[in-house]
Structure formats: C-alpha cells, structure tokens
C-alpha cells in the first residue's frame, strides 16, 4: 500500500519544527511513524508535509533531575520500560509501555507519539476501499458519524496504553512552541473530541514527560485486556496507583472514551478504605460512571463495562493489603 505524496522536512531545531507547523497548518509531526504512517496508507490522514523529529538532538533520554523523572518525548517505548528506575519504581509505566503493539512497535514507537496517537474507530481505521461503501465519516473529512448516527460529531476512542499509567502518576508534559515551552498536566492535552483529540496550540510539539518523585512512593500497575494479549490495542485498559500511607488511590482507563479518563467517583469511594470483599462489590457499580462508552469497536458496551470492573479488581488485588 503506497503512502500518499507529501513534502518531507527534517528540521534541526525545535524552533524550526514549530515554525514549519505554524506555517503549514496541514503539516503533521512524524516521530516513530507506527500510528501516523498506517493512517496515511489508509488515506484517513493526508498531511501535505511531514515534519520529522529524527533530526532533533537530545529528545531521547530517561533521567532523574531533583527527584523528578524526565523522559524525552522521542524516547522509544523499549528504552522507557528497560530503564531500571521505571521498571522498579513505576511499574504501571513499565507494564503499559511493554504492552504496546508488538516488540517492533516498542522499538520504533516513541512515548510522545504513543501519548499523541490518533483516536480509533471501526469505521475510521479501515482502508479506502473498505470505507468506500459508506459516506466519509466526520473524522475522515465527511459529515456523519456512523457510530452515533448523527452529523458533525465523532465518537472515536482513545486507545493508548501509556496515557492511563501516566495519568494515575499525575504526570506532566512539556509542550514546546516557537515562543518557548510550558509544562501542563498530561490530562490537559486531551480535548475529549474524537475529531481532534489533542488540545495542543498551533505549532506546539510535545518534548518531555515529567513524573514527580511522589509517583514512586505508591504501588502502581496497569491491566489490559486485548484480543491477542501481546500485540493488540486494548479492548479496555486500566491503571491503578495507590498509596498505603495516605490511603489515596487513583484509577484511569483507556479505550472507554474519546480520551483517557480518571475514575474520580470510584477513587473517592476507595479513599482510605481497607480493601475487602464488600468494598470490591462496590467497584462494579461505580466503575463506568465517568466513561462515555460508544460502539466504536466491535466489542459490546456491556462487555467493556464488565472488563472495566474486572481489571480494576484485578489491579486492587495486587496492591499491598489487597485481596
């Protein structure tokens, strides 16, 4: 399958890259390419220009600065989960990064690219020929949403594995633009809109992920259910961070909404409580409160809801004091 035609730019600095993006609104950033190039082959994304980050020096690193862990956005997922600090202190991040796609995708794919990946839908992630049987969907440039049976909305689902793990660690991201950079909570980059899932300003590029020292002081894990465990996108993924000293817990899901979501009501319910059988029964009723499940994949909503409960209970059972 041939790639559509595009101009290829390999800028030597962030400022230069941002300038190209500002200049050409239909340009896209190319990192590992394992998400974007597939979409381009399917002709659902057809940027006129690709701005490759491969020429930028020093965007691939995992290092500790003043207790915080800083990860360059261009760091391959394999490098992230092989880092000794990540593997030992931030297991949710290590598990989630090592569950992305296949070994090849983990070698090629970057952590920044994984966070910024496109949302997915059974009507969108298809070849041009497959999609030709229906009018173009809203996300692909048409009007209707075949999932919602409405116009000018998009219910494609965010399916990244790493985002929920970073959300429960209260990670922040550094966005660099031509005028300088800003650091914001990771959850603020997600718009919750299927058509344009990221809220980056024009010309902005994610350059760094920052995880505070506090994240290493709790237990964390990531649970994923997928058709083929070792290579597929999640049907549902759930990350848990729990601190036995403060009684605080944080839970986030992927593949259940247009963005990765925190389960705030469930977190409040679990706050300071001893993990026991009765408590576990309360999980199921609260687990899907914050998610807006839609039929954007082939899996039924009730199945996804059940999985959400099972994954959270599985994660809680591994936590210190869990049952």
């Amino acid at each position, binding site marked *: *399958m041939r790639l559509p035609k595009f*101009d*290829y730019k390999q800028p030597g600095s962030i400022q230069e890259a941002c300038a190209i993006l500002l200049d050409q609104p239909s340009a896209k950033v190319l990192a590992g390419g*394992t998400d974007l190039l597939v979409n381009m082959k399917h002709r659902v994304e057809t940027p006129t220009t690709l701005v490759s980050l*491969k020429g930028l020096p020093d965007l691939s690193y995992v290092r500790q600065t003043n207790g915080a862990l800083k990860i360059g956005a261009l760091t391959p997922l394999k490098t992230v989960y092989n880092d000794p600090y990540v593997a030992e202190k931030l297991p949710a991040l290590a598990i989630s990064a090592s569950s992305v*796609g296949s070994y090849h*995708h983990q070698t*090629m794919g970057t952590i920044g690219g994984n966070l910024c990946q496109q949302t997915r839908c059974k009507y969108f992630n298809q070849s041009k020929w497959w999609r030709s049987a229906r009018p173009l969907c809203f996300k692909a440039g048409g009007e209707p949403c075949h999932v919602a049976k409405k116009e000018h909305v998009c219910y494609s689902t965010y399916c990244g594995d790493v985002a929920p793990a970073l959300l429960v660690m209260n990670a922040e991201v550094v966005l660099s633009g031509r005028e300088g950079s800003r650091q914001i909570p990771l959850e603020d980059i997600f718009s919750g809109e299927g058509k344009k899932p990221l809220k980056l300003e024009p010309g902005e590029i994610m350059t760094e992920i920052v995880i505070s020292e506090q994240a290493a002081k709790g237990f964390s894990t990531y649970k994923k259910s997928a058709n083929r465990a070792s*290579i597929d996108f999640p049907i549902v993924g759930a990350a848990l961070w729990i601190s036995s000293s403060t009684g605080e817990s944080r839970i986030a899901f992927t593949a259940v909404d247009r963005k990765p979501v925190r389960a705030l009501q469930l977190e409040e319910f679990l706050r300071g409580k001893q993990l026991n059988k009765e408590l576990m029964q309360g999980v199921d009723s609260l687990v899907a409160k914050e998610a807006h499940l839609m039929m954007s994949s082939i899996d039924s909503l009730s199945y996804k809801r059940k999985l959400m409960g099972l994954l959270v209970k599985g994660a809680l059972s591994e936590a210190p004091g869990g049952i």
Partner: protein
Amino acid sequence: MKQGIALKVNGDTYEVFIAPNQTLLEVLRDKLGFMGTKRGCDLGACGACTVLLDGEAYLSCLMLAVEAVGKEIVTIEGLSEGGALHPLQKSFVEMGGLQCGFCTPGMVITAKAILDEEPNPTEQSIKKKMAGNLCRCTGYKKVIEAVMSASATVGGKQ
C-alpha cells in the same frame, strides 16, 4: 520531490533516487532487489518486512527510506557469511521452523535482534517478543524451538 540518498545495506553503500513517500521496504525490494524482505500486510501488523536498523528490529513498511540514511541496515541476505548460513538460519532449517517460508526472513531477523539483546532468553520472552511475527503455517512451536536451540548453541552471537 525526488532526492538522491545513500543507504548502507548489508555493509555496502547504495545510492538511490527516491521520493519521500517511499518506504524502506519499497526501496529495498523494488530499487535494490533485496527480495528476501517480504511485503506482507504492509501495515505493520505481520512482521514479515522486519530488517535490522543499527541492530534493532524495525518494520521496514512503516519506515520512510529517507529516515534510514546513516543507519546500518541488515536484511536476511546479510546474515550468512561466505555462503555459510547464520546459526539462526541453520537452526530454523534443522528444527523445521518454516513451511512456506514467507514469514521466515522476518522471523529470523527478529530472532537475531532478540538474541543480540538477550543472548539466553526464556521461552516466555521469545514468545512475547516474536508475537508480532505472524506465521500461517507452522503454528509457532517449531519457530520458538529453533530460536531456543540457536540461543543454546551460540547465544546468538557469531
């Protein structure tokens, strides 16, 4: 716009004139004639197009050829030395780790990357890392056995 680039494949440098939208797979097969690298799904799902890029397993169908400039590319043709098969290739033959052979170049190259990174992998580790290499014939058992056998004899190193 087409441009001239130099690619280093199996130790030799080749100059090719290509467009930016050509993948490394297209250039290897259609321009340079390295037909050992197979085009399977062409979407990064099957692993048949795996090549080594600076020793790492890369899917050449999801890699722009222009981005491979300055990297050491190794295809299946580059594994054997002086007509003698690489120990991994020998092991695949001896253990019957192939039938039609279409997925085999990708399998062997991925196995090479795994053994270079982890000379004595567990069976579980091989299974996880080779999950992205699909085979429709053998059922994987003999493939895993072939990689295990190669790692036991030489640790994957030449």
